[in-house]
């Protein structure tokens, strides 16, 4: 490698094909200065001092406040709708129902178009039909929030109820239907797994159940909406600005460029902040009233009108030889959905990639209920699928009399297990070994119930974590290089609180050879380039690839500007890279000219380079997944069945870590959510009425501080040669494996196997 006087090498153009043999130059630590630094969050101070405005904090002259009235039956027709008292209530400006709502097109369902962002495809307030218990049936606009809230309670509704499917058991009895996983197959098979299971020396075959979960983001959903003629402006809290803008344009029948969504700051999303009814209702009511509208959902509104993670029932069967080689992995079952969402909870994702086996039978089906559309929640499929799979492996280890880590290591695949794609970078074995040593796994007593401290039984458990590497097509970036050496980089991406802007500022600084203070990263606005949703833990890679493409374009433009007098004269774009605030020859970094000098000499104030990321060919060419080895210790009261997690370690393998500080927060947050999944969280739908019973954070139990121990984290930090910066996703993986690690520790502590989440005290009596 040829380096500069500082010992660093220029950062040349990133590969044109991420599946190819040449990695991103930023995977090389010698080319990076900021990647790997624990940079504090850029907006942290402004956030904690209240200087940031969230979607419900924007105000406009004449703005009205919205409140919702929602259905109280799961299915049927509205036969009477008396809004007279509400209309007469103080401060009320408009009551919008299906009778006076503007005609709108249905919400384009997510996946039906690359830009479609709707998670429910029902017509919004267009007819008298009720499809779920809690469906909005009226919107009240008033001069104050209190007036709107009060008037909404004055609306009187009569219904003609129709038979509804509101119990899981009834839905399953009606028959489950095959489905897809994000458009891909919902069923994967290799060989005859049932036969292999029957013939196996040792096997387990169990059913695991997981309930509905709510995202419970600290910021309830909200939007402030403003029409200017037929131009729509929305301050939203969304993890998909471009998708939402395109979809709202379709709904209102206006050109895409007339919808402008701004969402720079979110108080968490976790998959729940897409396009739902509330934005459509607020925009429609605002149009009708001719005034700006703020809609800020109550927590109860969030529970009733925004989708949750679906309930699942999963069979996992594993057959193994006497020495622990997997002969068969069967992971099948069903998840709940509504007809309007038709979205599976893809719990077979971990079984597709984590272990080698001679045969596989994987499949997810859906059971239809008359319920709110379900949706993605942190680690769709992986969070609940890893619970079932990793518990089954623990059960098999017990039957084999084998250490559960050893059993896992014996089945480490050498390629993507079912389709044989070559591995990109997989260092799960290293994560297991490092984690076991750090956690003190060798001190675990494998006999259940053998370790006791007074009434408290103590156990250790482990499980693998995994999340796929995702990079959706369509991400784009615009780099504006200024004469003073500053750069602005614009991407229609998102920072839901995870530190996207901070991490990307580090990446951009390294890619462009700048200091972080010279870089401004702009995001969270539908008018910025490209299509990136904050989903699939993909943003680091997706934005990274888009910026890399724009950087390639920038280098080409810069070379066009340099004249023969420049030290760079005669070089081709592939022969140069960014270094020290300018451009240098890759093979001789002393041939260098600063951006400022190049622009200066060319008489340019700025240079703009915009490009779309290369298509994600690495996804189909390689087996690319983030992994982790999760370890925990629990104490279980032998009196009350209460479980306390006392130690937790995540040993992660997610490629290169861009920012150890924000990454640790992502892992930790995921693990805390995993503690909730394991022990406390269950969204209850009344099986007679389909109505959410525990629609508050007093009743829907997310973990409190006392439920969360200090969480230790380590990572392999080994760059993935096919991922931008060598970095795979980190945002969702923490919740995977965690549920099983806790359930397995509870088994080790007590000898009780709970296969039905959450593990509440009553299940351990």
């Amino acid at each position, binding site marked *: 490698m040829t380096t500069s006087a500082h010992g660093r090498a220029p950062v040349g153009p990133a590969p044109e094909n991420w599946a190819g043999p040449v990695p991103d130059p930023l995977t090389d630590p010698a080319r990076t200065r900021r990647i790997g630094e624990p940079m504090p969050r850029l907006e942290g101070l402004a956030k904690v001092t209240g200087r940031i405005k969230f979607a419900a904090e924007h105000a406009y002259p004449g703005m009205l406040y919205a409140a919702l009235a929602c259905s109280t039956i799961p299915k049927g027709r509205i036969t009477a709708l008396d809004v007279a008292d509400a209309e007469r209530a103080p401060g009320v400006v408009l009551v919008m129902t299906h009778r006076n709502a503007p005609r709108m097109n249905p919400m384009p369902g997510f996946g039906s178009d690359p830009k479609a962002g709707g998670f429910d495809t029902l017509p919004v307030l267009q007819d008298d039909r009720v499809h779920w218990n809690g469906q909005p049936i009226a919107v009240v606009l008033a001069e104050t929030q209190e007036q709107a809230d009060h008037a909404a309670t004055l609306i009187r509704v009569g219904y003609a109820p129709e038979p509804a499917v509101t119990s899981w058991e009834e839905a399953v009895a009606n028959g489950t239907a095959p489905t897809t996983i994000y458009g891909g197959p919902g069923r994967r098979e290799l060989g005859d797994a049932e036969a292999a299971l029957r013939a196996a020396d040792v096997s387990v075959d169990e059913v695991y159940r997981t309930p509905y979960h709510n995202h419970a983001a600290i910021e309830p959903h909200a939007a402030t909406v403003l029409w200017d003629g037929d131009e729509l402006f929305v301050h939203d809290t969304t993890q998909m600005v471009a998708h939402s803008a395109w979809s709202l344009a379709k709904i209102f029948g206006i050109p895409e460029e007339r919808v402008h969504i701004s969402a720079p700051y979110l108080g968490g999303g976790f998959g729940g902040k897409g396009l739902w009814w509330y934005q459509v209702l607020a925009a429609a009511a605002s149009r009708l009233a001719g005034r700006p509208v703020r809609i800020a959902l109550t927590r109860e509104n969030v529970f009733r009108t925004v989708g949750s993670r679906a309930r699942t029932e999963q069979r996992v069967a594993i057959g193994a030889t006497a020495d622990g080689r997997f002969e068969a992995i069967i992971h099948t079952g069903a998840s709940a959905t509504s007809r309007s969402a038709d979205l599976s909870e893809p719990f077979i994702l971990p079984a597709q990639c984590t272990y080698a086996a001679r045969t596989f039978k994987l499949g997810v089906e859906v059971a239809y209920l008359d319920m709110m559309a379900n949706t993605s929640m942190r680690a769709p499929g992986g969070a609940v699928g890893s619970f079932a799979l990793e518990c089954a492996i623990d059960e098999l280890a017990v039957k084999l009399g084998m250490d559960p880590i050893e059993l896992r290591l014996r089945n480490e695949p050498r390629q993507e297990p079912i389709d044989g794609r070559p591995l990109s970078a997989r260092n799960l074995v290293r994560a297991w070994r490092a984690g076991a040593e750090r956690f003190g796994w060798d001190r675990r007593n494998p006999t259940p119930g053998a370790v006791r401290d007074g009434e408290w039984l103590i156990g250790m458990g482990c499980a693998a974590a995994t999340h796929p590497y995702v990079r959706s097509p369509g991400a784009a970036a615009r780099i504006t290089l200024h004469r003073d050496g500053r750069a602005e980089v614009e991407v229609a991406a998102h920072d839901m609180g995870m530190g996207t802007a901070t991490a990307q500022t580090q990446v951009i600084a390294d890619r462009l050879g700048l200091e972080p203070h010279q870089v401004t990263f702009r995001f969270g606005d539908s008018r910025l380039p490209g299509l990136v949703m904050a989903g699939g833990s993909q943003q680091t890679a997706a934005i990274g690839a888009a910026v890399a493409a724009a950087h390639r374009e920038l280098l080409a433009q810069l070379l066009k500007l340099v004249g023969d007098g420049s030290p760079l004269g005669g070089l081709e774009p592939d022969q140069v890279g960014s270094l020290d605030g300018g451009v240098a020859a890759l093979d001789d970094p002393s041939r260098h000219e600063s951006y400022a000098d190049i622009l200066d000499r060319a008489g340019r104030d700025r240079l703009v380079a915009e490009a779309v990321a290369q298509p994600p060919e690495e996804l189909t060419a390689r087996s690319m997944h983030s992994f982790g080895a999760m370890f925990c210790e629990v104490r279980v009261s032998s009196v009350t069945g209460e479980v306390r997690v006392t130690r937790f370690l995540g040993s992660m393998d997610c490629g290169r870590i861009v920012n150890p500080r924000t990454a640790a927060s992502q892992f930790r947050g995921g693990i805390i959510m995993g503690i909730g999944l394991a022990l406390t969280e269950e969204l209850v739908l009344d099986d*007679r009425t389909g*109505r959410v019973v525990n629609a508050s954070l007093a009743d829907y139990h997310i973990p409190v501080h*006392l439920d969360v121990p200090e969480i230790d984290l380590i990572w392999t930090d080994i760059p993935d040669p096919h991922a931008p910066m060598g970095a795979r996703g980190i945002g969702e993986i923490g919740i995977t494996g965690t549920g099983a690690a806790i359930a397995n520790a509870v088994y080790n502590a007590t000898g009780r196997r709970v296969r039905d989440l959450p593990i509440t*005290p009553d299940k351990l009596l």
Partner: protein
Amino acid sequence: MNPFGYARAADAADAVRLGSAPRAAYLGGGTNLVDLMRRNVVAPATLVDVTGLSSAIEERPDGGLLIGAAARNTAVAEHRAVRARYPLLARAILAGGSAQIRNMATVAGNILQRTRCPYFYDVAGSRCNRRHPGQGCDAIDGHNRDHAILGGSPACVATHPSDMCVALAAADAVVHLRGARGARVLPLTELHRLPGDHPEIETELEAGELITAVELPPLPPGAASGYRKVRDRAGYAFALVSVAAVLRVERGVITAVRLALGGVAPKPWRARTAEQALLGAPADPATFRAAARTELAAAVPLRHNAFKIELAERTVTAVLADLAGEAR
């Protein structure tokens, strides 16, 4: 929220005068009442703010305590005499709510808080006899994991949510009341009513009657006391089952005992049947378990809460065993 009036009471007499108006409600810390108003569960015409009334914690000559009704929960839990003489009460208060809620909530407000039955809160979508007499109860055949196994009726199976009251019940606390017809006292265990056919009538308080203080008589000399709460998460959750107990053991025999259960009944549940079985019996786990069983023999489980019977039995046994160890 409906429009309402607000008045701040200067003293107890003023409060009773203001509170005797139609649809008036006394306002303490507001940690429950304001929520109920925001959710349209209740709609008082006037709030009479009684936080300016006595919040003093007085030590009485007999060794007991008199706690002003406006004393904040935190102040009671932190009070030196409470911690020294009534550990069950300090622990019960600290097991409830969050630090912020305890800082606001008053003693009388805690006693008069309403059930957390989710159907009671769901004004728009669920039936509730406690909220709307005669409407029906959606909990009895609905999701009732948190509901009562003791003292319920076909009209209502909601539980009383207070931790503090369970300790007060076991401590033989007496509430001081003042109403239009003068002052009176009532044992805490007789303040709350079981639902029967009228779950909407939750206490023996007359219209406008105000709790002015809670009096704690001294615990039996030489007795140990404690409180244990079992819940779904480590903090900020209502009890699945809780146990407050006072126990004295002399030469291996139980010579004084008071036992109360929370999370299992529509009121703080004084377990007198168990107490009878315990008094004079040997202080051993078999006795404790048998006594718990006699109390729980009357339990009527619903679809989702049968576990509470065993959980209560186990928790009672463990708490008494702990106290027996402490007292010995």
